[in-house]
């Protein structure tokens, strides 16, 4: 028998937490699940050393009114509900209304040397560090694009890392234009100033791109291409990420219509955050990268709407639109320099699961053909990394989602008859 909720929320980041709280405030029976062991999502990820911000602690306190399902990973969709894998088994969760709040992942792009141990995402390094990765005394280069670089660098520094520099791909002129816009967003300006203060003494270089990572068995240094030429920097850790992309895989599996923004899809929603599938709502990063402020407002809107309180949801629209305005600003100012798309050469691995190089993909104009011929995208990450990277590089768009969403145990899938045994997602798990 499936457990059943009035409102089921997938993802316990700021969006999902706000959604669960809003829905529960109307007396709805709410289930909130996350693949992670703790609530908070990306921005409010538990830090082994530092207390969570007040807004996060307040959000966690509201979990008392909902059924909190930790380490529950949605792997498939079945007629009675979502098939969820837990460390000890699997469950079927039914719902009257479903809110998708699956957030974003980093846009991680290939360049020579990026598979070396010691190279990770910028947000990736931040996440690992918060969870106790030993960085004290380590020499770290932070690179890529967007404000996440500052947040990641600040976390690394707070854990004792020696941040050698932050290398932003956007030009100095663009970053200055962005900074001048902050006048219209006093709260954001204050946040940025606080981050800069925490990073006092750390060089921030614009128009600079890490074009290569060096090392034998692990990272030894990086080559940075900047306005004043190419520079070699010895380091222990490279934290490099080019912004974020929405995690739409579950929405796509459920049949929700997607919409392209630039090279990556997001979930299409109406003014009340309803997707194209009746009863399914989407909010936060998956409807377009918007950051923390948007996440919290949209989560609340979706919670109200899913519980049947449209007026309350509607009342937040103006506030949401304003917050989205800031996100649009980020998008235009931190657009990627085309040279980033040319960093990978023919010998650079693009599909890290199957070790497929960019050169091996020459001549393929479609993800499916490439997959059949080379196994690109068939590994454990199920094309999340190479698919987004190849779309970004202008090769071909990602192919659609298939169950299971993540490699799952056979026992989990046994209750799931619509999977074909030849499905390659069995592999890698």
């Amino acid at each position, binding site marked *: 028998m499936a457990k059943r909720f009035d409102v089921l929320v997938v993802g316990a980041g700021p969006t999902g937490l706000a959604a669960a709280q809003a829905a529960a405030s109307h007396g709805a029976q709410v289930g909130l699940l996350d693949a992670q062991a703790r609530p908070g999502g990306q921005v409010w990820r538990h830090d082994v050393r530092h207390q969570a911000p007040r807004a996060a602690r307040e959000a966690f306190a509201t979990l008392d009114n909902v059924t909190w399902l930790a380490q529950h990973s949605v792997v498939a969709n079945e007629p009675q509900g979502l098939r969820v894998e837990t460390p000890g088994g699997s469950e079927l969760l039914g719902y009257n209304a479903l809110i998708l709040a699956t957030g974003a992942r980093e846009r991680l792009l290939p360049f020579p040397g990026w*598979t070396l141990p010691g190279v990770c995402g910028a947000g990736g*390094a931040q996440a690992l560090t918060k969870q*106790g*990765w030993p960085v004290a005394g380590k020499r770290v280069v932070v690179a890529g694009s967007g404000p996440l670089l500052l947040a990641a660098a600040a976390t690394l520094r707070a854990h004792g890392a020696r941040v050698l520099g932050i290398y932003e791909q956007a030009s100095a002129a663009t970053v200055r234009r962005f900074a001048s816009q902050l006048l219209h967003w006093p709260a954001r300006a204050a946040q940025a100033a606080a981050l800069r203060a925490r990073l006092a003494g750390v060089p921030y270089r614009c128009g600079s791109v890490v074009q290569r990572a060096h090392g034998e068995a692990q990272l030894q240094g990086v080559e940075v291409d900047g306005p004043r030429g190419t520079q070699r920097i010895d380091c222990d850790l490279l934290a490099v990420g080019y912004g974020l992309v929405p995690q739409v895989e579950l929405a796509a599996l459920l049949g929700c219509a997607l919409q392209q923004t630039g090279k990556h899809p997001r979930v299409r929603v109406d003014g009340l955050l309803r997707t194209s599938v009746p009863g399914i709502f989407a909010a936060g990063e998956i409807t377009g990268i918007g950051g923390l402020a948007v996440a919290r407002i949209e989560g609340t809107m979706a919670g109200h709407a899913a519980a049947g309180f449209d007026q309350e949801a509607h009342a937040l629209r103006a506030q949401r639109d304003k917050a989205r305005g800031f996100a649009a600003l980020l998008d235009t100012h931190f657009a990627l320099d085309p040279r980033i798309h040319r960093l990978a050469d023919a010998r650079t691995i693009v599909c890290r699961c199957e070790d497929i190089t960019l050169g091996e993909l020459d001549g393929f104009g479609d993800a499916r053909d490439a997959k059949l011929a080379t196994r690109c995208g068939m590994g454990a990450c199920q094309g999340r990394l190479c698919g987004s990277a190849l779309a970004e590089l202008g090769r071909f768009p990602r192919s659609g989602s298939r169950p299971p969403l993540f490699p799952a145990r056979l026992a989990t899938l046994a209750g799931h008859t619509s999977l074909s045994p030849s499905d390659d997602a069995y592999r890698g*798990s």
Partner: protein
Amino acid sequence: MSRLLRLSVNGQSVDVPAGASVAAAIAQATLHFRRSVRGTPRAPLCGMGVCFECRVRVDGVAHVRACMTPAVEGMQVYTDG
């Protein structure tokens, strides 16, 4: 400082603060989490459960994502490095 947990990574004892991930415990012993299909060493990339580069064997179970798994006292972890 929070309480420490002791785990074994490839037979070597490591201590991590409570609330840390298995990935953090492994990083104290080695950066080689797994070998790729062509035999090159790999380590965590995304830190959030997406890339599967951090897969290791935990208490006999293979292909566990170290970044998604909270460290527990007495855990036996083996990398493929």
